[in-house]
């Protein structure tokens, strides 16, 4: 552990927390027995505090060091052994070197063993943390324990005996002369409890954090454990399947969380989930409802349609000049040309790098050796196979083949591999790792002409394989690939030069003007045409950089952009053409075509509507005339489902049309896009005889739950009092 992290904020909290917010005696209410027993006088209280300090810190470190070795079933026993050993050692050392103190402590050194704080810290902290932290935790908790002990002892000795550390304070102050008498009660154990009680009251009344904790205490206990277990079961925080505290904090750090904020976020998510879970158990769906939903989802409809396109009418409709100028005036905000820029840029690419000199033989030779795999063709094998799902049939075929039946013939008839059975099961040449592990294992162990036993693969199929040919691994010789090697060498060299230069390029571009950059690096400065934001004429990153704040507003060089094709580019603004309202003359043709489209669309909408209504009203003459006039035909789709893939999104439209009575038709018209209108004939609705469970019930339930949750949140929001801290805004 580095020194830096040892004194981190979190580690400091290990020391400071137990002094107040998480005091073992007054907050956790542990170690009360010793707080009662040895607080009659200051001296034993101080010595006890020191002994606990030694025992707890060392025990914490010892247990932390052994934390991965201790079998969990006997861990408490191990704790007790560690503590007891330390206590005995401390007692022995005291007896040998500070005899008076050991006499003073007498039985209470032994009592440390039963001090629940120590066992508690070992179980709660040392078992899960590295020794350094465990040591700090031990110190912190001992201080927290000791300070309370000393405070209690101070009052008990002063008020009970009138002395401090045996020195008769009150007598010297002359308090007795005023008629004061020692309060013998203070010496008795119950008064220790009262004193501790007063301390607890004083501390909690003063510390708002504790008041809050108290209010939430029950929730927090259960929630913390749950959160903890959720976090610990998260694989991201595990090392070899075990939750790792180090990894946990490392990952949190990387994601700029700290454990506290992360745990709060987790606990919020958990409680939301819990509410949702509770809600989900409150919604239900009956069998009949479920059946109805499934029926609806699987419903089929018989549909035919006429599609009317604007194409025929666009040239017929007429648009006059007034309409055009009106449209222009109303919509002139649509006829604005965005700002455009023209930029200077310097480009550095492999092409701009000088051709390197030809390499010597040695370099080429070693390049060849380093890249032999590039010039090696691995071993290939050719095989025929029969693919069978049924193991029984496969075995029958295998026997037939072994008895001399024609492999190709059997493959043609029986193989379920449709891509190869026509060729007698021939798979052609293939390398390793293409056919799957089991297949490879069999094929690459066979000799030409061998026939495999059944080869089972993960997919659940069985193969019978016949090896028909082998192409050995071949490696092209150095001489054969020498030209390629030279090219490879030059490419690598240029690449390297480019990357080296790129750094210089970036720093120059940051400091110098663009022409200086071009000059220094012996590159050409180029200039673009004007282009608009979002233009496709140049690379996307290039356009974005040209319109960036630093280029347009600050007139600086852009960052070095890495474009496709290994190009590096820096650009700077050459000139800016601001936003401009277009003239009517520029857009007249565009508007005319828009207006024509609108008019044509209206025409076909009317037409489709009148066809549909004449059909619906049974006016066959009229409808036939209309159809004949415009030369339209019915397209029949037959029975369709909701999921059927039809032109004009017809399936979803058809399922919104009211259901016709039996034997009747429902005719309707729909506009489906800017250039098409439909006349739709719905001539039947049916439910298939066998409806499978489509899972729609669950979908419905989850949706309902979601709605309930949203409603609940909404209601909670409405009921909540919201206070705005204006002084904080």
């Amino acid at each position, binding site marked *: 552990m580095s020194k830096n992290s040892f004194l981190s904020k979190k580690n400091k909290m290990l020391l400071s927390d137990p002094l107040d917010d998480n005091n073992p005696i007054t907050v956790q209410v542990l170690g009360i027995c010793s707080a009662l*027993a040895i607080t009659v006088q200051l001296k034993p209280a101080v010595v006890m505090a020191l002994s606990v300090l030694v025992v707890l810190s060392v025990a914490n470190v010892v247990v932390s060091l052994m934390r991965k070795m201790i*079998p969990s079933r006997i861990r408490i026993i191990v704790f007790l052994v560690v503590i007891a050993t330390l206590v005995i*050692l401390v007692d*022995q050392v005291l*007896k040998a070197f500070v005899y008076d103190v050991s006499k003073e402590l007498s039985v209470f050194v032994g009592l440390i063993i039963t001090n629940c704080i120590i066992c508690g810290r070992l179980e709660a902290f040392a078992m899960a943390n590295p020794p350094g932290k465990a040591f700090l935790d031990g110190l912190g908790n001992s201080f927290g324990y000791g300070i309370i002990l000393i405070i209690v002892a101070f009052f008990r000795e002063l008020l009970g005996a009138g002395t401090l550390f045996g020195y008769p304070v009150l007598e010297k102050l002359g308090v007795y002369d005023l008629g004061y008498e020692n309060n013998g009660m203070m010496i008795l154990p119950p008064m220790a409890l009262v004193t501790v009680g007063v301390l607890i009251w004083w501390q909690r009344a003063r510390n708002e954090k504790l008041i809050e904790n108290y209010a939430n205490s029950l929730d927090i206990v259960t929630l913390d454990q749950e959160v903890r277990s959720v976090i610990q079961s998260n694989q991201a925080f595990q090392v070899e399947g075990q939750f790792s505290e180090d990894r946990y904090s490392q990952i949190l750090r990387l994601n700029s969380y700290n454990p506290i904020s992360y745990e709060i976020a987790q606990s919020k998510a958990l409680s939301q989930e819990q509410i949702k879970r509770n809600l989900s158990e409150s919604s239900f769906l009956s069998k009949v409802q479920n059946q109805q939903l499934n029926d609806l989802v699987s419903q089929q409809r018989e549909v035919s349609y006429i599609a009317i396109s604007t194409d025929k009418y666009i040239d017929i409709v007429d648009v006059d000049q007034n309409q055009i100028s009106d449209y222009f005036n109303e919509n002139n905000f649509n006829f604005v040309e965005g700002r455009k820029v023209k930029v200077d840029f310097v480009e550095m690419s492999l092409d701009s790098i000088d051709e390197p000199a030809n390499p010597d033989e040695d370099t080429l030779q070693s390049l060849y050796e380093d890249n032999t795999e590039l010039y090696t063709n691995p071993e290939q094998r050719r095989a025929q196979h029969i693919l069978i799902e049924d193991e029984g049939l496969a075995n029958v075929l295998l026997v037939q083949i072994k008895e001399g039946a024609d492999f190709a013939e059997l493959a043609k008839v029986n193989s379920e591999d449709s891509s190869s059975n026509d060729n007698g099961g021939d798979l052609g040449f293939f390398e390793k790792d293409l056919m799957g592990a089991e297949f490879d294992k069999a094929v690459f162990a066979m000799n030409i002409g061998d026939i495999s036993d059944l080869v089972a693969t993960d997919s659940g199929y069985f193969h019978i394989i016949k090896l028909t040919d082998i192409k050995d691994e071949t490696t092209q010789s150095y001489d054969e690939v020498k030209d390629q090697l030279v090219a490879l060498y030059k490419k690598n060299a240029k690449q390297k030069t480019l990357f080296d230069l790129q750094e210089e390029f970036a720093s120059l571009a940051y400091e110098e003007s663009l022409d200086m950059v071009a000059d220094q690096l012996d590159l050409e400065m180029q200039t673009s045409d004007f282009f608009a934001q979002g233009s496709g004429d140049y690379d996307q990153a290039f356009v974005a950089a040209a319109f960036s704040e630093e280029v347009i507003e600050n007139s600086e060089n852009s960052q070095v952009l890495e474009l496709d094709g290994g190009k590096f580019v820096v650009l700077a603004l050459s000139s800016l053409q601001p936003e401009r309202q277009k003239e009517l003359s520029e857009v007249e043709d565009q508007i005319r075509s828009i207006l024509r489209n609108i008019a044509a669309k209206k025409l076909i909408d009317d037409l489709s509507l009148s066809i549909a209504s004449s059909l619906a009203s049974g006016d066959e003459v009229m409808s036939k005339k209309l159809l004949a006039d415009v030369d339209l035909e019915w397209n029949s789709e037959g029975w369709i489902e909701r999921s059927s893939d039809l032109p004009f999104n017809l399936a979803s439209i058809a399922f919104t049309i009211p259901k016709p009575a039996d034997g009747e038709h429902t005719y309707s018209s729909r506009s489906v896009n800017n250039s098409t209108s439909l006349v739709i004939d719905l001539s039947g609705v049916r439910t298939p005889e066998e409806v499978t469970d489509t899972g729609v019930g669950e979908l419905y339930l989850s949706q309902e739950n979601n709605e309930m949750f949203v409603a609940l949140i909404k209601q909670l929001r409405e009921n909540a009092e919201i206070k705005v801290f204006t002084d904080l805004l």
Partner: protein
Amino acid sequence: MDVNKNSYTFSFAAIMVVVVAALLSIAAIALKPFQSKNVLLEKKQNILSSVGINIDREDADVQYPLYVKQELVLNANGEIVDGIAFDVDLQKELKKDKNLQLLPLFISEVDEKKQYIIPLRGKGLWGPIWGFIALEDDLNKVFGAVFDHKGETPGLGAEINRPFFEDPFAGKTIFEDGELISIKVIKGGAPKGDMHGVDGISGGTITSDGVSDMLYERLNMYLPYFSKVKSEMDNDLNISKTDTLLTLNDIIIK
């Protein structure tokens, strides 16, 4: 390694026990000489303290022989037997039958007067209590007393080793009309003028009673010796009277 396997658990426990046992044994053996020295010095210090000589523990070795002139080991009949009084372990003696116990006795001289120092050992609330009571040469009047304990409650029973408790013993008497009354530690305080009682300690009643019992039992053991010494003293007194008379006679004769 699976730390939850039975075999692992057992071997872990076994190894742990052996390691801990070894560690503690080594510590105990290594520290023993220091601890024994402390106990020895404290005993000397306590013996001196019972006759009003208060010194630092470190000086006990040097000071002790200056005051303690005789160390006797007695048997139950009050006869002097062979042995080193200082090494008699009362803890062991108390377990023996009364008639077989060895009784250590220290005789000191302070301001040219003889004191008989009797080691005490008894039971307190949590564990043993012990001490020394020093009698003046009349074997009745208490010259001084010290007490100590192993693990009495701090602030309560543990206060028996404090001067406010020990000092009042001096000047009390243990006999009344030739009968051993010993000295009682009286709960709630001894009445004024009580020659056989001292104030008890509030909250330390059981320890106080332990002190009373200890005093009575231990002093009782020394009665045979006391009567012997007293009769010897009477003889001495008679002899000295005779001497005086003789001298007077001589004078008269002359």
